[in-house]
């Protein structure tokens, strides 16, 4: 079966060790993590882990179910690249000398929609935001000028889907409230006795 790139948006409780539990599942299935980002989501107290993996359609569904089975994972969304809006960010550090060899770098920065973050007498830092292949293209073109450092972030993504995570959460919380009502009902009845 063909392997494709999938982005997993994993919403979890803010507990220690969840990332470990997720990587155990991927490791057992011999799936390499292409990129990973973790941050707080739009809902306070809920973490969002964004993973990019390359695997088959069949396998991504299996691992997504296994990840969702982890007690502290609230919800997992699986997306192909066309179902999300996503970006990565790269930083390039070059020697300032390279800038002096004409305006080629200026031109590259402009044409790639990148920007200078810092220019000192020793070095320059260029920032580029975009998809992985765009970043790699710029990397390729900057390479002849001698790159001192290059780093690329994990993927951040938002989904195009209409039903948002907080709506799922609302349903869950409503169920919780029902449950508590039932509880306190029993409690009150006991007290009356």
């Amino acid at each position, binding site marked *: 079966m063909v392997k494709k790139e999938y982005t997993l948006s994993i919403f*979890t*409780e803010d507990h220690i*060790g969840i990332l*470990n*539990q997720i990587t*155990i599942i991927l490791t*057992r299935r011999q799936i390499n993590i292409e990129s990973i980002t973790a941050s707080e989501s739009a809902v306070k107290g809920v973490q969002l882990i964004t993973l990019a993996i390359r695997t088959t359609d069949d396998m991504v*569904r*299996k691992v997504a*179910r*296994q990840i*969702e*089975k982890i*007690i*502290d*994972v*609230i919800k997992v969304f699986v997306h192909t690249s066309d179902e999300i809006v996503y970006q990565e960010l790269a930083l390039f550090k070059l020697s300032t000398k390279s800038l002096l060899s004409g305006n080629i770098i200026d031109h590259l920065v402009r044409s790639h929609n990148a920007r200078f973050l810092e220019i000192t007498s020793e070095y320059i830092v260029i920032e580029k935001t975009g998809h992985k292949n765009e970043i790699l293209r710029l990397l390729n073109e900057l390479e002849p000028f001698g790159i001192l450092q290059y780093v690329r972030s994990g993927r951040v993504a938002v989904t195009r889907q209409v039903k948002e995570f907080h709506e799922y*959460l609302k349903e*869950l*919380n409503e*169920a*919780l409230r029902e*449950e*508590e009502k039932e*509880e306190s009902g029993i409690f009150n009845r006991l007290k009356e006795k």
Partner: protein
Amino acid sequence: MFNYDKAESMTERAEFYEEKTTEEITGAEALLRCLIEEGVDTIFGYPGGAIMPVYDKLLDYKEKIRHILTRHEQGAAHAAQAYAMVTGKPGVAFATSGPGATNLITGIANAYLDSVPVVFITAQVVSSLIGTDAFQETDIIGISMPVTKWNCQIKRAEEIPEMVAKAFYIATTGRPGPVLIDITKDAQTGKLPFKYKKCRFIRSYNPRKPLKKKEIESAAILINHAEKPLILAGHGVLISKAENELREFAEKTGIPVAVTLLGMSCFPANHRLYAGMLGMHGNLAPNKLTNEADVIIAIGMRFDDRVTGNLKKYAPEARIIHIEIDEAEINKNVNVDIEINNDAREALKYLIPLVNPNSHERWLREFRINDKIEYNTVIKPEIKPEKGPIKMGEVVNMVSELTKGEAIIVTDVGQNQMAAARYYKFINPNTLITSGGMGTMGFGLPASIGAKIGKPDVPVIAFLGDGGFQMTIQELGTILHHNIPVKLIMFNNFFLGMVRQWQDMFFQKRYASTELVNPDFVKICSGYDIPAERVTEREELTQAITRMLNANSPYFLEIHVEKEGTILPMVEPGASVSEVKISK
């Protein structure tokens, strides 16, 4: 735990303060009171440095909680699992930090693969020492993560009630499984105002699945049109207590019921619709006819490779309906046509009125024909041999007849296990306690202890091999210490029988490290004050077994069996279930 900020009324807040001022107890005591609140009255365990505050408190609670001191933590884990399997209540096992905790791991993994609720409580070094490689410190949270349903570390006494409540809720709901709580020594000695509230809901975990009515209705249509339907019943039927529903469903539709190893005893073996055991050493008919079935109804089972054989050649003619509580198991090994992600009992209750009464006589006849072939070529020579060495099958058959299929049977792993599963005729639910997914040698002896403590009024008989018995032989000490009247039958063939069988069949009979030099087992048992006999001749067998069954004490029978016996039928590795062999 009560959350002050979330309290809605003033009275609730007032009550909270009232509670707070009433009593402060130590974390160790709080742990025991939590367990009592959860209905725990038996704990299996082994003390050590870090868990001493808890054991100290146990003395004060010995009227309410019975502690069974095993001779190794692995024994405690297996015993707690067997206790859970026979009682339907969660088992509890204690161990100290470091080696105590790591010794539990085999038992935890075993409970995980067989979906048994056990709450493991391990102690941890003082929280300030965690991460420093302190004496008897080990990262048990990291180590147990892949083999527990959930685990957590408690570093403050106040967290104990909430976490224990969560642990029991998670272990026992949905697809059950083991959980582990690691409690630091300072959390055990710290004080807290004690208040216990059972956990009933966790936002990120929802074991109650809405009934899949539409899918069940489609399933009913498939079933009503099926000509060769087959039910595959697994452990989930026992876990969800769906034995009666399964029976009603099978009787109404006339569909034969095949069981997995762990599903064994969920359907009476003497029922006319009982089709036998599936899998590598299962019966001929259900294996062979799986590949002829046109509709398969899989209930609470997970299509383990030992059941399916070669997946590429598995059930090619069948539409598959999968009733399974764990969504991650659906479409994992076998792609199914109808997914019913529900509790087995709830799904069956909804399904039964939708199916038409039927009797698949022609289809059932095919089972009978295969049963007859198997009986003549495999079963009869195994259970009624006229000459030659004693066979495992004849012993199991004899025990089955003498106990009318109503005992609890515990097995170790290997040939003894397959003989027990094949030749004991289980009548009552939850009466086979065996290590399925893990295949843990050494499981049998400690598990028999846990089973007997859980069901003291039912005879508990363990079938062990000479290999597995010696892996946890020290638990004879537990039997002596607590006077547990388990009946142990050890088949001695002076071999690691199942491995030897594979060497015989697939490794040109090269017996690498499978022949055993064994001690005098009867002498060992007498050292533990356990009545013991050695049986080497067929003529002595009936009387020895009768003596064993009639004894009020623990009893040990060493039975010398055929040295190079082979368990058949067999679905060889890589073969399809329909290629099941009935001779070598």
